[in-house]
């Protein structure tokens, strides 16, 4: 069974590019485009292998999701968290808190290569 990668990103095109990169290396991908929906999904008992989290989201920001749920609940302790932001400063601020920070523009190849390295060899 393939690992679940959760893409939380409000831009449809970017989400689909990220999804393609992750699917390409064998992840099962789920896309959530809204902060509120992401919060509900995350509280639903799932424990994805990887979360690709955009810091700027409608309704509930990625930063809030990170501090209030992902960093709080033990369920996500083994989850690899990658945050995406266009703000280099913000990215720097979260450097210590998450596994990877990707500054937009994010390259398809870069994300594919990174996730390929992260995915456990089956």
């Amino acid at each position, binding site marked *: 069974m393939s690992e679940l990668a959760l893409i939380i990103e409000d*831009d449809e*095109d*970017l989400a689909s*590019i*990220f999804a*393609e990169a992750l699917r*390409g290396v064998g992840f099962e991908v789920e896309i959530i485009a809204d902060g509120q929906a992401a919060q509900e999904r995350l509280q639903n008992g799932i424990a994805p292998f990887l979360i690709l989290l955009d810091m*700027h989201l409608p309704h509930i920001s990625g930063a809030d999701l990170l501090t209030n749920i992902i960093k709080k609940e033990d369920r996500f302790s083994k989850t690899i968290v990658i945050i995406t932001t*266009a*703000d*280099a*400063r913000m990215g*720097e601020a979260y450097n210590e808190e998450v596994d990877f920070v990707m500054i*937009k*523009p*994010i*390259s*398809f*190849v870069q994300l*594919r290569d990174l996730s390929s390295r992260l995915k456990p060899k089956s």
Partner: protein
Amino acid sequence: MNSLNRFLTISTTDPDDTRRRRILNILVVSITALSLLAIVISLVSVYSKAMVWENVALIVIGSLITILGMLLVYSINAFFSGRIAAIIFLVFLTIVFAFSDTPQQVSGGRSLFGFAIPIIMASILLVPWSSFVFSSISGIIVSVIAFSINSVPNSPAIIGFFVIALVSWLSSRSLEQALRELRTINANLDQVVVERTKALAESLERERIEAGRSQAILNSIADGVVVFDTSWNAILANPALTGMLDLPLELIVDKNFRDLIEHPKLSPRSRNLLRAMMEYDTQPPSFRIEWDKKTLSISAAQVYDYTKDRFTNIGTVTVFRDFTREAEVEKLKSTFVAIVSHELRTPLNAVLGYAEMFKEAVYGPMNDKQVNMAERIMKNTQRLLGLINDLLDQAQMEAGKLTIQMAPVRPAELLENLHSILDQSAHDKNLKLTSEIDDSLPEVLNGDGARLHQILLNLVSNSIKFTEHGTVHVRLFSPYRNRWGIEVSDTGAGIPESEIPYIFDTFRQVEGTTTRVHGGFGLGLSIVKQLVHLMDGDINVKSQVDVGSLFTITLPLVIPEENIEKWRIG
């Protein structure tokens, strides 16, 4: 008492005359009163049978004559001449004394002393030397009476008259002297008072004109001005302020600022700022407050007065400027910057991603031409993203919003990142991109990693852009203990000497026309220079046309505290 005073005083232009006439009146009134008393006593004693009429008749008649004489003297004194009245009075007095006793007593006995009275009075009622006249008259009268009774004139008494006259003359003269001096002093004093009053009036007038001018200047200033004393009472304010705050002047002037800032139109944040302004004695910087729907910029300055060789704080002058429009524009600008930053970059990121997917043949095989096209799309998108970043940086720097954030940085990491991004571009142009780190540089130093990266990226990509063959070399070094530097050299086109002063200007490229050849806004070097200055550094360029350019940046070298020991040992 007042009416008595009026009765006794005769006003004249000569103060001495007035004084003498008043004294004469006092004497006249006293003698009249004594005469009346004598008449009353005589009549009472006759009535009570203590005396017989024959014995008192002379006293009563004499007293009546005296009263009549006194009335005459008073009238002359009051309506004609003080001097004549005084002479008549004194002569009358002398005659009265001459007949007041037996000739024996008058010429040589107990009644002699009576003559002393007119002699003394003469010096007071007339001019001082008139005592001698009356002592002579008295002497003659005494002698005549003595001769009339066949007696020798009493020479010691006559000499005594002259001695009394001498004493009276001296004392009266010094009294008049003292009075004259007093009058002179008074007159001088009056003059001084007049002059001082005039000077005061003039200076008040000057001050009024001055104040009027200051007020006119104050009134014509578009900024709101209010002046406070040291306890923050508003001393004065101008109409611009009342317009700005939409409050009448009465609610501002003569009121304490502490009361004004409780006004509901003021936002709580602004209230705290104004409280802070009042609390700090040192000159507060300018700041902004929200008043109703307005944004006001406030700058305050302490007012000092230089007196007694030192400066004394006498209050604060506060200038209010309507900043509403500027604040709106600023807000619009930062909103614009934020929108551009997000809304432009996101779709460009998508374009870049899709182009990459083409290139990587995610949806099936691509031929070389298709791959090449995808690469071109990617390259152009990246250029566009770079331009947007430059524009945003420029906008942020203009707004003063770009700040430098220091954190530990590894120079080696800076170079690694640089290579990972630009190796490909250099390779594409058949250029060598090389780099080195001098041993003099510590492994870790304090700096703004993102901005240092940006500086390196801008300088090196600029060098690659203008170099057709050869090498672009980057060197990181430390010229001396507390500085470190970045050197970027190339073997490119070089910069004409005449253009060197302008290469760091915004929107400028060498020769003005190269923009079309090389692309870009010409913002890169300008941003580099501004960033270097924000980091308290310097940037220099040496260049020779067709040989190459050398950019040198020096920055303050600060080693993070946790690395200091290591650096010293290392």
